[in-house]
């Protein structure tokens, strides 16, 4: 056990939080900084894709059943690897790559003969929830939570506005009848983000409760994944907004829809606050970068002129600055009165 842990354990014993005598807790071996997890996550994903291409070329599974069997076998193999190496970090990457390959194969088996945009979104969502619940590994669960968030965004998008998979990135046809469906935008936004905001808020507020139960192994990766999703998820939702506004509406006069990209920044700032609450500098940095990305998107996209965008930003800036100064003054008053 490290000196840091020893010192802290002594304090916990002194305060009666842990028993005064008894065995020492084993060191957490899988603890790694966020950028190491990022490096390993990206490498694992890419390796998984290479592995699936290799297996596809060798085994040539041309039916849904063959793909299903292949995907299931890969996922089971990944589970065993994670389980066998749950206290180490040697098989993690191999298991992650195999798990990714398995997920892709399983998704392909479901969608091969009955392909639809909504089907793809729901399949991805179900698969990611399954991985989150089953895989005994923190990185795998965190990635699953993040991808489940993205899949959820798409599921709501295709539930509210059914479309084909080709329309995921560029769909302009809705621009023609935007007026008839403008109400969809706020409804879909609320449907998409309110549950995720509520989940993140609940997980942050109830942290001591779930830490004291078996839920911690799911809740911790879920909190990380949802905070990441809240930061960047609106970029995934971008096509949805494009569907509503359409590129034909770029540069038109101001209307209330122009404030929607600012809501993405608000979501990222909520994620930043959540990251601060769990004292995660990595998550905080990610949320700030995401907020700046949203600002860049606001510049290039959405249906209003740059002049109105400028007015919006200046007003928002003044309001934020005043609110920040008011908070600081209140804090100073509270400090002075105590």
């Amino acid at each position, binding site marked *: 056990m*490290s000196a840091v842990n020893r010192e802290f354990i002594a304090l916990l014993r002194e305060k009666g939080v842990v028993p005064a005598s008894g065995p020492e807790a084993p060191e957490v071996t899988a603890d790694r900084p966020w950028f*190491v997890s990022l*490096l390993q996550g990206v490498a694992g994903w890419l390796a998984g894709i290479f592995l699936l291409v290799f297996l596809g070329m060798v085994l040539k599974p041309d039916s849904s059943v063959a793909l299903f069997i292949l995907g299931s076998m890969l996922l089971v193999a990944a589970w065993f690897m994670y389980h066998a190496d749950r206290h180490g970090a040697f098989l993690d*990457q191999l298991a992650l790559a195999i798990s990714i390959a398995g997920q892709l194969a399983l998704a392909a088996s479901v969608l091969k003969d009955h392909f639809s945009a909504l089907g793809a979104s729901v399949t991805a969502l179900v698969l990611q929830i399954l991985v989150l619940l089953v895989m005994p590994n923190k990185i795998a669960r965190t990635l699953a939570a993040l991808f489940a968030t993205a899949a959820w965004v798409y599921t709501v998008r295709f539930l509210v506005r059914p479309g084909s998979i080709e329309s995921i990135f560029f769909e302009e046809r809705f621009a023609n009848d935007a007026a008839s469906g403008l109400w969809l935008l706020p409804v879909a936004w609320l449907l998409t983000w309110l549950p995720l905001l509520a989940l993140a808020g609940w997980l942050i507020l109830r942290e001591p409760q779930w830490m004291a139960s078996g839920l911690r192994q799911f809740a911790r990766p879920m909190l990380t994944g949802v905070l990441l999703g809240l930061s960047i998820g609106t970029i995934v939702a971008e096509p949805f907004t494009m569907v509503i506004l359409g590129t034909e509406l770029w540069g038109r006069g101001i209307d209330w829809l122009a404030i929607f990209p600012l809501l993405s*920044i608000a979501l990222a700032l909520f994620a930043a606050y959540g990251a601060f609450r769990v004292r995660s500098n990595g998550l905080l940095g990610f949320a700030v970068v995401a907020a700046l990305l949203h600002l860049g998107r606001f510049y290039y996209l959405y249906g209003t002129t740059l002049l109105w965008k400028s007015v919006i930003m*200046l007003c928002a800036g*003044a309001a934020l600055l005043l609110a920040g100064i008011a908070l600081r003054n209140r*804090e100073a008053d509270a400090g002075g009165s105590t």
Partner: protein
Amino acid sequence: MRRGYTPPRMQPKLKRSELDGLAEFHSLTPTKVEALLDLANARPSRAEGLRFLGLCLRIAGILSLAAGLVFFVAANWARIAVFGRFALVELVLVICAAVAFLKPPPSFAGRGSIFLAFIATGALLALFGQTYQTGADVYELFLTWALLGLPLAIAAQWSVASAAWVLVLNLALVLFCGWHPTGGMLWILFGGTRFQPAHLVMGAAWVNLALWFLFEFWSVQAVPDWVRRLLMSCAFGFGTWAGVMSIVEIGYNHDGPRNDSLTFVTLTLAMLATTIYTWRRKADIYPLAVVMGTFIILSLTWLGQLNGFHDEGMFLMLALWLIGASTAAGRVLTVLHRRWREEAA
């Protein structure tokens, strides 16, 4: 001279995964977990939360005002005459200077106003180019902005202003290296056949790396660890770009990269210098992670170039190499992280 820094990540604080481990091992009740979190200082108090929120709002406010100014100049509003547009941006500059004079940094008002002045400088340059159609390349705008804005970034004594300056400089470098405008003042020096594009990209990497080393040795409060990490990321972002160009032979003239030992040597030197320095400092493993990431990407590109993607064996080899290399990198980084943190304690 005071040595560099003690990054927050290396401070001997218990991380959430370690606290989870303790809660699980001792089967703590919710009340005891609350005590555990409080003793570990793992949850901010209400006052801390409000302070963070207040700071966030003020920074977001300054950034929004800066964005509003840039958007306004970009909008090129026809109802205001040229003189009026210049006067407006210059007025912002004067107001910012006045506020900074009355409330100099490190007060937030001083920092924020100098940061706004830095943004206004860029807006003014863009307005100048937009109005008089100077014919300057886009990279020249950003490069001039970086040069003229440097005194402001220094005067602000603020990490946000430092990061903004780093971003502007790197945007200029990306545009210079990436767009090949074959025009502008720098291309007179570095264009033609004297330098390969990969050399220019590697030069941009070394600019960032030199700044990183500078602020490692010369401790400046306005350039904290996260800004240095930004410099390191930019340095090896360019380094990886140059390496990939060299391996896949993109952007070379008819001689090809056969004689391009310069890119290989300078990139290897950059990786070695960073590794040796970081190893000796034992303060932050981030630079090592970036070097390893660069190595993994370059080796993967090189393997892919060996035989192309014609047979299945190549995909298996790439997958296995990625798994092996990232496992080894992760293992080394995790062990070093723990060991250095222990030593720092």
